């Protein structure tokens, strides 16, 4: 897992992960690249991350992947990321395509639901919490 300040260098990450696994004999490599869409007049999105819990979340996914003979990877931006640049890359390597296709779907969906990352719209230099697009994590409401 890697966190970067600002936009991700997607090509560098794609190539580096490919090279790292070049001799691992995985038949399928599926990256997911998330790019900031220009919409609602935003200039950028901005991200807060709570790293200790994100790391635990990611470590559990590595264990899940390992049981399937697969590997997961993840990179995310911290701070402002301008529109048309990327804030998120995750990936699965697996010997077989079915495992890889199913795992990337589950990994990305669980990331959206449970990774401790908060998103803000940046408009006129102001940071506005993207509350309408945010999801309460599993177990939310415990203290209500």
């Amino acid at each position, binding site marked *: 897992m890697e966190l970067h300040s600002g936009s991700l260098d997607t090509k560098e990450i794609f190539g580096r992960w490919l090279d790292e696994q070049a001799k691992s004999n995985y038949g399928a490599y599926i990256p997911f690249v998330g790019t900031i869409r220009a919409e609602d007049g935003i200039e950028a999105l901005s991200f*807060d991350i709570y790293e200790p*819990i994100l790391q635990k979340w990611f470590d559990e996914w590595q264990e899940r992947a390992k049981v399937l003979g697969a590997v997961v990877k993840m990179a995310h931006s911290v701070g402002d990321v301008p529109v048309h640049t990327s804030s998120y890359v995750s990936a699965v390597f697996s010997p077989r395509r079915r495992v890889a296709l199913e795992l990337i779907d589950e990994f990305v969906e669980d990331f*959206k639901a449970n990774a*401790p990352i*908060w998103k*803000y719209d940046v408009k006129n230099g102001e940071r506005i919490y993207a509350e309408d697009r945010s999801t309460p994590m599993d*177990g939310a409401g415990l*203290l209500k």
Partner: protein
Amino acid sequence: MIKVEFLGPIGKTPMEIEATTLADVAVKLKEEQELGAWLDKCAVALNDTMVNDLTTVLKDGDKISILPPVCGG
């Protein structure tokens, strides 16, 4: 003492409270008016591990994190 920290957009400074279970923490936090809109949609971590049980017992020096709705990606 138990430290309570509020993550992401909540924007509240950390608190130090006395509590022996998570249920005690709930009672204390409900007294904080500015948390009114947050508690029903926030998840909770104890020492950086997600927790789901109000009877969880706390000890001196524990850290509670309050995690509002997320949107990575």
